[in-house]
């Protein structure tokens, strides 16, 4: 297992894919931070909810973390490297496990960086605009831990999702369709079910407890379950399907 993990970590840092995702994540977070920080009025910025929204921007990293996991597996199918990977390690579940762990580590790093950026730049902007920091320790703790948990879990979910779909383009399109179309439809069409979607479960990780969301712990556990189901399905299918 250690060998497979080292191999996966080497793969992750030897192409520009994850570097690109990292750059994209930083850029998106900066744009959002600056937009909220600069357009909000002084009284807006002093508001608790507004500050919470500002420091939640780090959760945008979840998208990029998901892509880390999706790319970790679909890029091997796309470029055919999956063949040599499985020839060297015919016990395919070891490969999947190594990809889960390495993606989780990357997701963790992305999440830590994202929340660090949010707080660093967000706090500087509050100071510059003369607003007081009004979040309490619980808020901060929830934001930090929630963001990191969120990115780690989405990265793992991405591996499972990618293993099920295999085709890189289809996987990315399916993600977009899910977040942009299917999830909103579920939200509006099935009252009460909306809080149980992966996206709502994820949102509850950092959110102030709200009626339409689960508790952070409940949402976190639900997201863990989603990730576990996708990884189990991907692992099952990858073991069964021929590699042609």
């Amino acid at each position: 297992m250690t060998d497979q993990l080292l191999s996966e970590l080497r793969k992750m840092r030897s192409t520009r894919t994850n570097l690109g995702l990292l750059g994209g994540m930083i850029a998106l977070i900066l744009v959002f931070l600056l937009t909220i920080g600069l357009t909000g009025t002084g009284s807006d910025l002093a508001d608790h909810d507004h500050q919470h929204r500002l420091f939640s921007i780090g959760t945008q990293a979840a998208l990029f973390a998901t892509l880390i996991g999706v790319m970790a597996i679909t890029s091997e199918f796309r470029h055919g490297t999956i063949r040599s990977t499985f020839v060297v390690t015919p016990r395919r579940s070891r490969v999947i496990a190594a990809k889960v762990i390495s993606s989780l580590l990357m997701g963790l790093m992305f999440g830590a960086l994202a929340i660090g950026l949010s707080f660093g730049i967000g706090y500087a902007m509050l100071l510059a605009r003369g607003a007081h920091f009004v979040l309490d320790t619980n808020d901060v703790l929830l934001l930090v831990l929630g963001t990191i948990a969120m990115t780690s879990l989405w990265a793992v979910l991405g591996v499972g999702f990618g293993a099920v779909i295999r085709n890189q383009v289809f996987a990315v399109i399916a993600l977009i369709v899910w977040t942009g179309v299917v999830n909103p439809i579920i939200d509006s069409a099935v009252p009460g079910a909306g809080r149980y979607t992966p996206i709502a479960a994820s949102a509850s990780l950092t959110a102030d407890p709200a009626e339409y969301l689960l508790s952070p712990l409940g949402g976190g556990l639900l997201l863990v379950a989603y990730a576990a189901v996708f990884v189990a399905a991907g692992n099952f299918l990858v073991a069964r399907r021929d590699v042609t």
Partner: protein
Amino acid sequence: MAIEALPTESPARGARPAAAFPVVQAEHLTKRFGDVLAVDDLSFALERGTVTGFLGPNGAGKTTTLRMLLHLVEPTDGRALVFGGRYGDLERPASRVGAVLEAADFHPGRSGRDHLTALALALGQEHSDGNWFVEREHAASRRVDAVLELVELSAAADRRVGSYSLGMRQRLGLAGALLGDPELLILDEPANGLDPEGVRWLRDFMRSFAAEGKTVLVSSHVLAEVQQSVDQVVIINKGRLVTFEPLARLVTHLSSSVRVRAPGARLLHTELEKQGIRAALMNRDELRIEGTSSAQIGEIAFAAGIPVHELVPEASSLEDVFLELTTEEPS
């Protein structure tokens, strides 16, 4: 040209020490993809130290067979064994079997060295339990340097694979297969896209690999590519075994006929029949004779006092035999 049914028993490997089990063994191997029967009841066994050409036209089932041997494709029926067991059941199988499956199996944005290092790390070492990450990384990097040297790719190792020529990719694939210092090499169409120099390099490589007592199974759809490097051939067509025999025996299927033009063709025909030589009268003054040399025919004609205008040996090439074997006869 008609070729009678060929014997398909295993070739005799007289002088070689008998191994406990064949290095590669297909037993009634069958694979069905939906409606397509890609491999159909294929059986053969390869002994240690042999270089075997795995031949057949495109779509004959060669690639599927090789992938079943490597546990990438699950057989519908029958067994595909290496070293007496299923590939997936071997401990660190890549330390015994090296494979090059496709020339394009690389991430274009990754350097050749990183590609190999990722494989070397996954392969690991024997008795490495408890080794630190750094030790494992070092061991992998030493192994990578060695195979890069072997395939003469050291200079380009840090370039992205996207910038490699096809020949360089083939060699990079080979380097990957050699990481575990294997006893068996499985190569799927390795000569595809190689220039003549590359083909010769590959041929020399396979010969020296086999000279160390190791085994090679190399597929091709062109006999000429491997003719000079293999000592036996497994020929398949439409998923079924056509023949499995030493190259030397395949040569005996070469029809060496002699065409004779002589005004007294009928007379010569009779003379030859007397000697028990079968000859076919093509037309009034032309004979086609199989199974004898032009020298003998000349002597018989001379002894019988028959003038001969032309005496032309017509040998078919191995490629003709191969095509004959793998081309479906119109029925």
